[in-house]
């Protein structure tokens, strides 16, 4: 019983982390058709900003508040300078963002001297429920992820801005004819996606510590999630992320860990073979 509760919590919390990371990636991929290979590095930048604020002697939570803003600003500049040139050429965008990611990753690596640095949680310690110690910070991540997810969904479905974003996605030409500046919409969407990545990085850095390759593993899992969930839908990315996160955390409980790592991909590929559109194909927010 204790073990089951513990397993459920750990699987849930890792699932939440993956959802948080994939949310930004999914929004950019779905709304703009751009596969942002620098997303992992935006996560890294969020983590680095948090560490930087902390290293100045300020509280960690302040760093976590600042990180999304800083990464959003960087995302905005990147969109204006680089990404907007690639809207007509998604393959070039992949290469361009990959190069950008490489620059950011190696930049951060030299800034932190290639070291692995631990950053403390703003809420430390564990909460004992039914005899099982649950990490307070992981619990906080689950709650924050849920809030961010719901807020993002509401913005996209219930606000006029969300309507314009969806219009720009469905039919860019018609949206432009109707007086919507798709250019501005794309800039805001990309900035928002970057901010989410920054937030994800800030929240996960106490769990995984800061190192230059922090973003890479999440990037691969992220793309797998989007593929699995179905490109072009908000729910798809979230559902895909939840499935991938839960699978990669749950499988090691059942099979040998090295096998589990491969199984996640095998299951995802088999699934896509039978349902190429993904989990939530054909439905849009």
């Amino acid at each position: 019983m204790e073990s089951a509760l513990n397993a459920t919590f750990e699987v849930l919390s890792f699932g939440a982390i993956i959802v948080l990371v994939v949310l930004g990636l999914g929004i950019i991929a779905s709304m703009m058709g751009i596969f942002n290979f620098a997303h992992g590095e935006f996560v890294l930048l969020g983590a680095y900003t948090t560490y930087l604020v902390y290293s100045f002697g300020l509280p960690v939570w302040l760093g976590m508040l600042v990180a999304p803003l800083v990464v959003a600003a960087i995302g905005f500049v990147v969109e204006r300078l680089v990404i907007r040139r690639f809207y007509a050429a998604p393959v070039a965008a992949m290469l361009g963002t990959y190069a950008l990611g490489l620059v950011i990753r190696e930049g951060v690596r030299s800034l932190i001297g290639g070291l692995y640095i631990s950053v403390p949680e703003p809420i430390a310690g564990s909460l004992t429920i039914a005899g099982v110690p649950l990490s307070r910070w992981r619990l906080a991540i689950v709650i924050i992820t849920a809030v961010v997810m719901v807020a993002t969904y509401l913005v996209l479905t219930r606000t006029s801005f969300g309507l314009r974003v969806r219009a720009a996605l469905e039919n860019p030409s018609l949206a432009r004819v109707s007086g919507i500046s798709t250019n501005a919409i794309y800039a805001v969407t990309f900035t928002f996606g970057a901010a989410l990545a920054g937030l994800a990085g800030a929240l996960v850095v106490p769990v995984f510590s800061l190192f230059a390759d922090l973003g890479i593993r999440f990037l691969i899992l992220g793309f797998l999630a989007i593929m699995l969930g179905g490109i072009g839908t908000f729910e798809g990315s979230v559902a895909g992320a939840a499935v991938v996160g839960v699978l990669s955390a749950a499988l090691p409980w059942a099979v040998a860990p090295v096998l589990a790592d491969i199984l996640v991909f095998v299951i995802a590929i088999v699934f896509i073979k039978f349902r190429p559109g993904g989990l939530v194909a054909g439905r849009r927010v």
Partner: protein
Amino acid sequence: MREETTDGRIAPTMGRRCFLQSVAWMSGAIATGVSSWSVQPDWANAAAAPIKVGIATDLTGAIAYVGNACANVAKMVVKDINNAGGILGRPIELFVTDTASTESVAVANVRRLVQRDKVDVVLGGITSSMRNAIKDVIVTRGKTLYIYPEQYEGKECTPYLFCTGPTPAQQCDQIIPWLIKNGGKRFALPSANYVWPHVVNKYARELIEKNEGEVIFEEYYPLDQVEYSATVNNIMTNNVQVVFNTIIAPGLGPFFKQLYQAGFGKRGGRLACVFYDENALNLNAPHEIEGLASCLDYYRAVTARDPASARIQALYDEQFPGKVLLAGAATGMYRGLKLWELAVREAGNLDREHVAAALDHAKISEGPGGPAEMVPGKRHCKMNMYTAVAKNGHFEIVARSEGLVDPREC
């Protein structure tokens, strides 16, 4: 070069000459190497040509902090030797090349070191896969001497390849009996899935069972895994007393953190990790690894009793005051260079056969951690070993080997 276009605008174009210039410049840059550099001796009147020492280590990539510590130590030792008049009346010129934590990059860079720069000896390589990738380039095709300075899984018996870091026998023979006495008999062996953990675990398991301990589980994980909840649960529910860890970064920090949060330390569990040195102390908050036991040839705490170690530590701190510390992963570099220096002096020349023959029985009386000597015919190094425990973010020595420990290799 600018040309006028048909609509009258001035547009930049690339002419043939400009293109050729760029190509020439770029090929020059590539040929001379952008990822390597040399430190020339500052002897104004060096009459004899310098002796060339090549350092091939990971200055960039995932384990760059270890590589940079090694490069720093090499610079310090070479400077020291040059200040004392060099070797055989000749100064030493240091050639440092980046192996970039990537074997394919490393092979090309090391080949350049051996074939173009024609160095007299190569020291470096951090992981075993790196050593295996570059040893052929150096020893077989390059006909050059190679010194590998890291703690590793043993079994490297290639001629002209000398190892100056600790082996499993040197580490496990010391720490396993200590762990059984100061931790318990129920062991877990969580490990990264590559050659070093597999070989160390095999050795450790035999020792654990010989000392009447028991291995509850031995499990291997992908190198980049960062989520260990299933493993932690396994450790907690099976009442494991000692976690003998061979998981490496990036998974190491999150794993220890999860173990701490699950209450492993609180219920008296003992963490052990034989590669954990002062540079690794950054990986976790001090309270998460309180009581972690490690076994290496050097810790900063050794300086309290050994004046030679204290002098070397002070020299390093003065020359490299940054975050990259002189720690267990870089001491093999010091030992290797000093042993090689003695061997060259004894041989009286730089001929590979002669230097290798002298290096085979070289001894130094001072080094980080104490004296060291090569075991004749084995190409491995005897050294002092220390068992240390992390207390409040620092290592405290809890046990010392009785004299130099035999590597028991080859």
